[in-house]
Structures are given as C-alpha cells and as structure tokens.
C-alpha cells in the first residue's frame, strides 16, 4: 500500500519538495525541543565539539548523537515512511544536524546549490533520486525569517544547467520560501536547487535536518555512528539507516519493524 497520496506524489515529482504541516504533535514538538535545547547547551559549553560557529549560521552536526529523542526522530511516522517510499526500501541516512539561524544574516546569492550535483558524481541526477533532505521546524518560520528557498522543478534539469546568478538568495526568480509553523516538516529532492534565506526577522530559526540516501552510500564525514549510537540501534531499520548492514545485498529492513522507541507512536 502506498503511503504517499497520489497528490503528494504528483506534487513531489513535479516540484521536488513536499510540506507536511503539523508533522509533530504538540507533545512531540515539546519533547524534541527539550532535547534540542539540551544538545545546544552542551555544544555551546564545549567548543571542542564539532560544528559551524559563524554569526549568520550555527550547525550542530551529527545531532542524533546528543539525545535519544533526536535519534528516534529519524523514523518519525509522519515523515519517514513517505521518504522511504520515494527513495526505496534500501533507504539509508547520509547526515543529520541541528541548524540555528540567528536574525541578521549576510547570505548572498551564491548560496543556491543542489546537494548532489557536485558531491555525488557519476549519476545522471535528472533521472535519479539519490538524496532526500527532511527538515523539522522547531520554531515558526516566516518568509523573512530565514526560510529555506527552493526552485520548484529544478531537480529534473540536466546536470549541467547553470545556476542563475543573483545577488541575494531571495532574488532568485521563481523561488518558493518554505514557511511553516513549528512542528511542521518539509523535505526535498537532493538535486533540487535550494538556498537558505537571510533571517531578517527577530526570531532565531531552528530546524533539525535528516538527510536520507541509499544504504550503499557512505555517511557524511564525521557522521559514522559512535559505538554508543550504534549500540542504541536495536532494530534492523535503525541499523540499516546507520550504515550497519551490507550495502549492496541482503534484505532491506521492513518499515513495520522500524520504530524502536515509543515517543512518536
């Protein structure tokens, strides 16, 4: 049985992205926010922890390492089954992070990019689906509040299609700002042109990122699971997502066995 509705599939195929309003319940959002706050506090207290610390953008990579609730979010039932259907049963995870975008950013138009065009050579991306990036909004995201911008339909452009030059991300003709309320999620094809926008609002934008690929793809640098996280992967699906199963052969994990914790059930 398909998880995506016909309309969702049509929209994703044509536009390269999908918004899931209200993906997290109020209780789930509170749980995830608390976990993210704990992670952020620990990360700020220890500059030795890896990440990006620049005025316009902070990134805590490998966020699942910080809290069980952030690990469990990788299989959230409102989002994960949809992405699995789009990528196939051999789904894997490539990277995961917590993005914090404070007001007052200085992002220019060169921020437009696809995740796969230069980083995943050898693939004809216009006809393939190599990555799907999911973002969970922990705060309301207004158009001027640093929303992710996407250029619908560009995921099927030929790989050598030039990216139009613009001064700021917001000036890209046809760009759509993925605005939403806290608790919503959106995801997009890794070949879709996208960019962060400048946060000209007053609220720090906070999103959790889970970037899915195929189990035969390597994880992002420094995202190989720690022994502790690997030990916490107690289901076949969780082990597959962490790259702990054979890459090219062997049975794919079943969806129904995936949820190992209870907070999102």
């Amino acid at each position: 049985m398909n998880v995506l509705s016909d309309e969702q599939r049509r929209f994703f195929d044509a536009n390269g992205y999908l918004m899931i309003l209200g993906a997290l319940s109020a209780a789930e959002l509170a749980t995830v926010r608390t976990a993210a706050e704990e992670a952020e506090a620990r990360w700020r207290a220890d500059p030795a922890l890896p990440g990006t610390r620049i005025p316009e953008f902070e990134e805590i990579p490998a966020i699942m390492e910080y809290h069980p609730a952030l690990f469990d979010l990788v299989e959230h039932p409102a989002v994960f089954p949809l992405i699995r259907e789009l990528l196939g049963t051999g789904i894997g995870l490539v990277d995961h992070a917590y993005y914090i975008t404070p007001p007052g950013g200085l992002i220019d138009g060169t921020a437009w990019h696809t995740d796969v065009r230069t980083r995943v050579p050898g693939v004809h991306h216009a006809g393939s689906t190599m990555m799907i990036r999911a973002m969970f909004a922990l705060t309301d995201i207004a158009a001027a509040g640093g929303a992710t911008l996407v250029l619908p339909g560009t995921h099927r452009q030929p790989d050598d299609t030039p990216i139009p030059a613009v001064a700021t991300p917001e000036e890209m003709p046809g760009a759509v700002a993925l605005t939403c309320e806290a608790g919503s999620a959106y995801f997009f094809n890794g070949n879709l042109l996208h960019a962060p926008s400048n946060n000209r609002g007053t609220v720090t934008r906070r999103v959790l990122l889970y970037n899915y690929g195929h189990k035969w793809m390597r994880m992002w640098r420094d995202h190989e699971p720690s022994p502790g996280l690997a030990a916490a992967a107690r289901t076949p699906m969780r082990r597959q997502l962490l790259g702990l199963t054979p890459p090219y052969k062997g049975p794919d994990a079943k969806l129904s066995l995936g949820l190992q914790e209870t907070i999102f059930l």
Partner: protein
Amino acid sequence: MRASLGELPLESNAMSQSPLSEEQRRFFNTQGYLVIPGALSTEELAALRLEADVAEARWRADLSLPGVRRPDLEQVLGIMEHGPALFDLLEHPRIFPLVRALLGPDVMMLDHDYFITPPGATIPQGWHFDFDLPRVDHPRSRLMVKIFYVLDDIPPDGGATLVLPASHLTPGGTTLPNSEVPEDLPGAVPMALPAGSAYLINDRTYHSAGNNRSGVHRRLLIYTYGHKWMRMWDEYRPSPELAARAATPQRRQLLGLTDPYGPPVAWEET
C-alpha cells in the same frame, strides 16, 4: 565469437590528452566493455603471478582467510592485502588512468579479488548485472568500472567471462534472458584472452562466467572501482596495515580513507 572489438593498443593514445582514445571511449560507452591486449608487461605479469601464487598457497593453508571455496569458484578475497605488487596494481600506470577517465577524479576502490575457476566448473544461469539499484538512472549513470587482469591464457572453452554488448544501456529493473549454459546466450562475447590482457566492464554490463571445459584453471585478478561517496563492501575495508601503506593522498582516496563528499584528490595528467 572471440573478443576482438575494442582491442586497441595503449600506444595509440600516446599523443592524446586523455588516457582513453576517442574510439575506446566510444566503444565503452556503446558496448559496455573494453579489451586491453598486452595490458601487463612480461615483467609485471611475472611479478603478479608470483605474488598471486604465494597468496593462493597461504589462503589454501589457512581456512580462516576470507573468500569463496566452492568446486566451481575459488575467490581469494581482498587480494591487495596479500602483496605489494598486488596493492600497486590498484594504480597500474597504464590501466588505472583509463578507469579514472571513465569514472572521474573521485574514483575509489570497491572490491578486489583473485578468482580461480577450476576445470569442470559449470555456471548454470550465471548471467547477471552487478548493480540494479532503485532510483538510479542506470543507462545514463556510471557507478562502477571493473577491471579483470588475465594471469593465464584463457582458451575459448576455459570459462571466459561472457559479456552481452550494449546491455548496460537497459533501464534498471530490466530482466534479460538467462541461459542454462552461459555460452548459449545469443550475442554473448567471450573474453578468451592471453595472459597479460585486461578487460573492463561497467556496473550494468550483463555478464557471466563461462563453463570451464578446458583442462586449465582460469585465473583472474579483479579490481572494482566506484566513487568515493559509495560504500565499500565491509569485508574489503583496508586492514590497518594496508591503510598504513597508503602513502599518497591518491592511494588513501582509493582505499576510502578520505572525505566521501569533499573534493577529490588531484591526479597527475598522463
């Protein structure tokens, strides 16, 4: 039919910027395979045979060493771990540049083996694609190139690899005919080649081992290359000793020891 198409001597490329001639590239693009006669010099072949013999003896004596031990196939898994010449074959100065030209600068090793096919081996319905990966536009992508180095002459009935030309252009999920006797598949081209030859296929070239009806073992060294963002089979991850011997950034990339999604290393032009 004997393998003859695509047999272009490397010397013909001496003046070319690319290690692949246009004809070789066109042939590989359209047929999905390429034969390189005389890929190994006499001295190289002798050195590789020597190390392969030692590796085989050690592997036979130690059943804990990984591989396949069946009547129809013996596979010494992870052959680069067994000797320096076998490790250096990963970057053979005349053959590896062809692979790099086909895959790009982010090339990485996926697996490496010594295949021994004894006389009498039968391979019923052995035809297969190495990759049939969902959501990949296979006909217009190139994920992998596999090199076979021939260590001993392979007679026409000696279990030669069979390839089906142009089969790499079939879309993912395609089922092609199989045959009980691999050689019976119409259009099959056998890689019956003299020692020192090499041949290349890509990830979607439909192929099979043949039945070895000769009196000699078929002996091949197989090096499979992909992209550095791809996972290596777990059993081929380099041992600490092999990793320590990867003295250059290029060798480290080939062993999967660099950033999977970062810029590739620079390669010297050939």
